[in-house]
């Protein structure tokens, strides 16, 4: 609070000194946090930097909880006439936000040739969830993929090469079995692997389907492919990890406590967002590695995370100011620092060309895994009525993992309902 008013003061004085009574542009943005660490502080820091460089723009950045909360709050603000010119929201909210007629494409906002060039400066895979109808609606910010964290000490302990994590599904099973350890009473003391199945099950599942050579939906977001044989196979494999191969606990695995499980060495391998990298690095009391997810037919992971959107309900000046802010937040140096501080990926090749991030990657190679995996990545599940469709798939996954339905039954049911919902689009 004090910091902000000081900045105000500083900004005011600068304006006075320049002798030009500039009109200030006020921006309000909402943003979510979905991974560990004091991310709000980092965002606040980046914003103050921006305000110091742009005294004519005042930014009110509001932390609004998880992705769902942030979307509700931003849309609620718009609806009740409170200002919000831009926000960070789930990249997969795209189709829904367009259906609500809430956002504008960046093509309508950018003016200079340089700005237009900037639109093309990001990794194309990261743009998949941000573009529709040949226009750009979302600019990548806190983006991630799923990576495999593994405990090198546990690998050594099980007689495995710690520099060779599983690269295929078969290896995941065979190594997982070696890594699974039982105590004297027959209870499992350490599991081979854990893939979280609460919170964002559809996301993890996106990785398994991509590895099996299939995607979950079309780019227009009005068709899903939940009942394709490859998709059903992927879910069967996930289920078998627990039930047949017994390298993973049965039932669902909690997203929120998984990192703690890994840190306490209750599992030798976990699949999780790259967004956890920095926290794991800080807290792991053992030697750990990060690798790409294993392949069946091919390598693969969905991208994930949040994009910047500009709301329709904003003036021309506000849009320009918002663009300025987004350009600042996604500039290579900022993106590099953001990536180092959080574990989220650098969103453009230029970010990985900065000295800061290059040095960091040399010193801590796992930081580059997410980037290297990008060329095998695919879009995250994103459709019209995304919340409902996502829940259908989440429920189907959980029903299969907990043994209430067979993978085929569960997914066919979900597909049927998704088809009905999407028929209107």
């Amino acid at each position, binding site marked *: 609070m004090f910091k902000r008013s000081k900045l105000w003061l500083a900004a005011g004085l600068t304006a006075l000194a320049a002798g030009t009574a500039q009109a200030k542009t006020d921006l309000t943005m909402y943003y979510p946090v979905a991974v560990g660490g004091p991310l709000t502080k980092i965002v606040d820091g980046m914003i103050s930097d921006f305000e110091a460089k742009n005294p004519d723009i005042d930014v009110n950045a509001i932390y609004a909880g998880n992705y*769902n909360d942030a979307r*509700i709050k931003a849309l609620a603000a718009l609806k009740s006439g409170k200002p919000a010119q831009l926000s960070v929201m789930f990249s997969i909210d795209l189709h*829904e936000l367009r*259906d*609500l*007629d809430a956002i504008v494409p960046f093509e309508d906002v950018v003016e200079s040739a340089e700005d237009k060039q900037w639109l093309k400066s990001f990794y194309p895979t990261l743009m998949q969830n941000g573009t529709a109808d040949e226009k750009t609606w979302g600019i990548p910010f806190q983006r991630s993929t799923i990576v495999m964290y593994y405990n090198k000490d546990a690998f050594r302990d099980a007689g495995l090469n710690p520099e060779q994590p599983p690269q295929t599904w078969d290896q995941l099973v065979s190594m997982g079995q070696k890594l699974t350890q039982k105590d004297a*009473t027959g*209870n499992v003391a350490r*599991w081979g692997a854990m893939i979280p*199945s*609460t*919170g964002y099950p559809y996301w993890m599942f996106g990785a398994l389907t991509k590895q099996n050579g299939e995607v979950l939906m079309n780019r227009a977001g009005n068709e899903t492919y939940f009942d394709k044989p490859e998709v059903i196979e992927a879910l069967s494999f996930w289920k078998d990890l627990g039930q047949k191969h017994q390298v993973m*606990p*049965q*039932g*669902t*695995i*909690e997203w*929120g*406590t998984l990192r*703690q*499980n890994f840190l*306490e060495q*209750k*599992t030798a391998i976990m699949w999780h967002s790259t967004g956890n990298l920095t926290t794991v690095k800080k807290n792991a009391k053992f030697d750990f590695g990060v690798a790409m997810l294993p392949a069946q037919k091919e390598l693969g992971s969905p991208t994930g995370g949040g994009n910047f959107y500009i709301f329709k309900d904003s003036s021309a000046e506000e849009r320009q100011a918002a663009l300025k802010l987004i350009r600042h937040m996604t500039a290579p140096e900022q993106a590099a620092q953001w990536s180092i501080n959080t574990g989220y990926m650098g969103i453009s090749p230029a970010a990985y060309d900065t000295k800061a991030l290059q040095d960091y990657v040399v010193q801590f190679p796992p930081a580059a895994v997410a980037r290297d995996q990008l060329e095998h990545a695919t879009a995250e599940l994103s459709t019209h*009525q995304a*919340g*409902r469709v996502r*829940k259908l798939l*989440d*429920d*189907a996954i*959980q*029903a299969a*993992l*907990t043994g*209430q339905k067979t993978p085929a039954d569960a997914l066919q049911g979900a597909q049927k309902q998704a088809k009905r919902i999407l028929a*209107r689009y």
Partner: protein
Amino acid sequence: MKKLNTLYAWLLLLPALVLLVSFTHAPTILTVWDSFFFAGRAGQPARFAGTENYLLMLEDEVFWQVMANNAWYLIGTVPTSIAIALMMALWVNSKLSGRSLLRLAYFTPTILPMIAVANIWLFFYSPEIGLFNKILDAVGADPVNWLGDPDWALPSLMLITVWKEAGFFMIFYLAALQTINPELNQAATLEGSSRWNSFRRITFPLLLPTTLFVMVNAVLNAFKLVDHLFILTKGGPNNATNLLLYYIYENAFSFFDTHYAATLTVVMLIMLMLLAAIQFGWLERRIHYR
């Protein structure tokens, strides 16, 4: 004089009534109204749906699961909370040493916001690292995936609910117990009736009005206490712990389908009215309620 009185009474009631009408009665009617419409797309006005939303609801598997869950939640938490609350009150009212400390212990959950303690319960229930499985392990029992196993998830949530509300209800029983003349029980004891008998024949009937009050509150909680779902299960796994109010919230605020949410709310309203009628009707016959 009568006219003046009427005017005066209405003036005194006015502020409360305006608020009650705006936030209880009007929204109730609007909810029913809304349930007969579909949302319009992208700024279009709503379209009349007739009973379509209700038909969709009847076909909605999740709706039926949610209803079943809520019924179990009700059956699992209401009698348990009442029984435990009564037991607590009897203990705290007896000559047990250290009873004020005990009273404090029973009452603390009332002060702790559900949303805050939910995270602590998450630790208790966490399968590999959590407290409960550590205890199970120590006594040589098999670990349980409390929140990740559909059979255990709802009972696990019920335990938290009972823990949260029993101490609060205890206070009401305690208050009632203090007003019961101890001579009544002494007399019964002198007559040689057993402790259980004197409780059953004297204390319990005198506590019936309190039981009514507590029961109404416990039933209401079974519908409205869903805070812990936000942290612990979000209704999962596969809707095993999804409750009606949470499902309404999901539909309204995650799926932006206010009309379907309204349809579900109508069901909730009908159930609450029915339950109110049953409870008051049943107990009215058994007790003199002043």
